[in-house]
């Protein structure tokens, strides 16, 4: 018997041992050998190798529980739409929009540079991304499935492109942590399964959620103005430049602009995760996702004089990613068992209503 080329054992090694058990490894090997024989080769082609190794790795991930069921992706998408849209509305109102006649004269001299770099009535190059979020919310509410995913991807692209655009056009951009958070939420909205359309009542619950989160954020904003001198906070709209970058004496620092409220958001998400852990395990990945998205707000919110803030941000994010992996494993096991039970029920129902053998196409009802 001729010895097999080493490529075959390497390819089989891509698969987990459990998958190869019960002769499946030998079966796959036979298929690969047949394909090579048919093509007149002694070893698999490069495309065959790529195809098999991708499938093998996917099987490994699946057996490790690293898959996201459709139901979880739908919930992540819904939460992302609510948070992203609310954040976009909030940022346009509190951080971007210039109210003529109110902005001038309320900022210290070192902020004048920002005021004279406006893009019309707006402050930064991120405005198109905020507008896309509002379109995405509209698409979600009217049930436009395909536009929903495309708009989410456009929002992510605009957000990731914002730093480069700011450099090219010599305009301002929001802090990196805020952009990272919006990008994560955009990805969350994009992974929502296109085939699943939430019912109309649930869409209106989403709209209510956007209003509630926006109101909460504006409430936080008003609360955060309590320590700012009256000259800067005569109106929460007039303090627009200080939303992204808070003045501290002669310096601008960004670690006080959003870090405080964001920290409370993260803590609130953690408490919520504990509650949900007890009551609804299927929602754990969603809560963990929100935890990561909000944690991103802390990234980049640091200054050279406070390097510990950067370490805190990294630690928070690592902890969040650890939690999300743990939660995925737990939720996948739970959802997998539940969907299997549902599927067995459907199968029995269809089986009970099968037509007599030899239907329209002569297909037998049994094997």
């Amino acid at each position, binding site marked *: 018997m001729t010895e097999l080329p080493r490529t075959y054992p390497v390819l089989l090694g891509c698969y987990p041992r459990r998958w190869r058990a019960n*002769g*499946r490894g030998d079966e796959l090997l036979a298929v690969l*050998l047949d394909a090579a024989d048919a093509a007149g080769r002694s070893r698999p082609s490069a495309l065959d190798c790529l195809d*098999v190794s991708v499938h093998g790795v996917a099987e490994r991930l699946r057996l490790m529980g690293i898959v996201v069921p459709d139901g979880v992706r739908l919930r992540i998408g819904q939460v992302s739409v609510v948070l992203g849209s609310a954040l976009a509305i909030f940022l346009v109102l509190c951080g971007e929009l210039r109210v003529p006649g109110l902005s001038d004269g309320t900022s210290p001299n070192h902020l004048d540079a920002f005021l004279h770099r406006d893009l019309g009535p707006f402050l930064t190059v991120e405005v198109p991304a905020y507008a896309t979020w509002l379109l995405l919310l509209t698409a979600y509410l009217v049930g436009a499935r395909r536009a929903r995913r495309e708009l989410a991807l456009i929002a992510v692209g605009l957000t990731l492109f914002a730093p480069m655009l700011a450099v090219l056009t010599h305009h301002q951009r929001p802090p990196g942590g805020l952009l990272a958070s919006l990008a994560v939420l955009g990805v969350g909205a994009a992974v929502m399964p296109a085939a699943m359309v939430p019912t109309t009542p649930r869409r209106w619950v989403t709209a209510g959620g956007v209003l509630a989160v926006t109101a909460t954020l504006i409430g936080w904003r008003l609360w955060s103005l309590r320590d700012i001198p009256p000259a800067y906070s005569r109106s929460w709209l007039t303090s627009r430049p200080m939303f992204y970058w808070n003045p501290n004496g002669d310096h601008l620092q960004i670690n006080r602009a959003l870090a405080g409220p964001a920290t409370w958001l993260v803590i609130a998400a953690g408490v919520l995760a504990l509650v949900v852990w007890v009551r609804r395990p299927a929602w754990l990945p969603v809560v963990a996702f929100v935890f990561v998205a909000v944690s991103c707000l802390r990234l980049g919110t640091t200054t050279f004089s406070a390097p510990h803030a950067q370490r805190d941000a990294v630690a928070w994010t690592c902890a969040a990613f650890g939690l999300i992996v743990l939660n995925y494993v737990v939720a996948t096991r739970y959802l997998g068992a539940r969907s299997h039970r549902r599927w067995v029920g459907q199968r029995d129902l269809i*089986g009970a209503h099968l037509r007599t053998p030899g*239907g329209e196409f002569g*297909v037998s009802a049994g*094997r």
Partner: protein
Amino acid sequence: MSSDRVTMRAGTLYTALDRLVAEGLVTDVGTEIVDGRLRRNYDLTAMGAEVLEAEIRRMRLNATQAASRLRARASES
């Protein structure tokens, strides 16, 4: 089966097979040795036959509509 119009690579084939087995549309009916190589045979389940029948009906309807539109276009010109 497809008269060589479709060539499915092994990884793609097993992705589809695993999904079909998981959905209860096909089932494993045993193995055999042919020319010193292991073969596993799969067969349609009753539910798989139902789904296939529905899919054929849908494709046939699409083809009928496309053909009627083509005929209408030809008669206009």
